[in-house]
């Protein structure tokens, strides 16, 4: 097996880690968002009188849950563009 130079190895490892992080973060967030939406819709069907309030709240709640995925994205962006350890491999 030929020897990779350290910078190329660093790039490969970073790319793989970023892929894993973004997939994991998105899957977990989407599953939980799905649960929230199911609960909201069930209760809207059960009590149509409060459907307006629920539909207003669910937008805000989903945006807040989605920030978990955004944090994963931010970590990925830091790893890709502003990695503090990148200078060690130059």
């Amino acid at each position, binding site marked *: 097996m030929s020897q990779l130079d350290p910078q190329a190895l660093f790039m490969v490892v970073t790319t793989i880690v970023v892929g894993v992080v973004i997939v994991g973060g998105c899957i977990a967030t989407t599953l939980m968002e799905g649960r929230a939406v199911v609960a909201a819709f069930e209760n809207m069907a059960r009590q149509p009188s409060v459907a307006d309030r629920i539909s207003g709240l669910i*937008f805000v709640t989903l*945006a*807040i849950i*989605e*920030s978990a995925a*955004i*944090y994963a994205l*931010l970590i990925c*962006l830091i790893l890709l*563009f502003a990695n503090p350890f990148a200078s060690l491999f130059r």
Partner: protein
Amino acid sequence: MGVEEVFPHVVFRPFGIPIQDTVVQTWIIMAVLIPLAYVAGRNFQIRPSRWQHLVELGSEFISKLIKLQVGRHIDGLFELLATLMLYIAVANLLGIIPGLRAPTRSLNTTIALSIVSFLAVQYFGIRERGLWRYSRSLAEPLGCILPLNILGQISRTVAMTLRLFGNVIAAEIMGQVMFKLMPLLAPLPFTLLSLITGVLQALVFTSLTVVFIADAVGRMERKETEEKG
């Protein structure tokens, strides 16, 4: 890939102070919004014009938000929320104009916005309840919970910053990458998605601010006014 174009860069440095392009875009928004707000507030009639309907729709929305969360009138709260909402919505949507980008894609802009929100929470809390009662409410129900409350106040401010920043920069980067891959039609769905998330994030930022302020000015007073009204 040219993704680096998305990140803010220094445009010019008068007197050695670096000015980033996000600041210039903020100036553009100010130059548009301030005269617009001045014109919108004049010539209100009993029989509203089309333009007045639009202004009333927006202000009624924010009044409803305050009524739902706080339950009573607080001086200055409406103005703060309307300004936050207008500025963030316009700033997030600025990226769809060719040649301009959303100023909220810089972490500095969103930090400034959430510091305003954080200080507003302290200001309204102290003004409505008094310094002593407000500080004591941070230590309720137990004294040992005080550090946790302070930590919570700081961490939710940081969370607001990162949420707005992450959403906007994700939309900008997706648009840029799709533009580089296939400039014709491919960025269009992502631009449409960024329209929704831009307005939604402005709404989320405003609602979180009003929830925190409602928390700071106290729930006891809120119940009393509900029973009265």
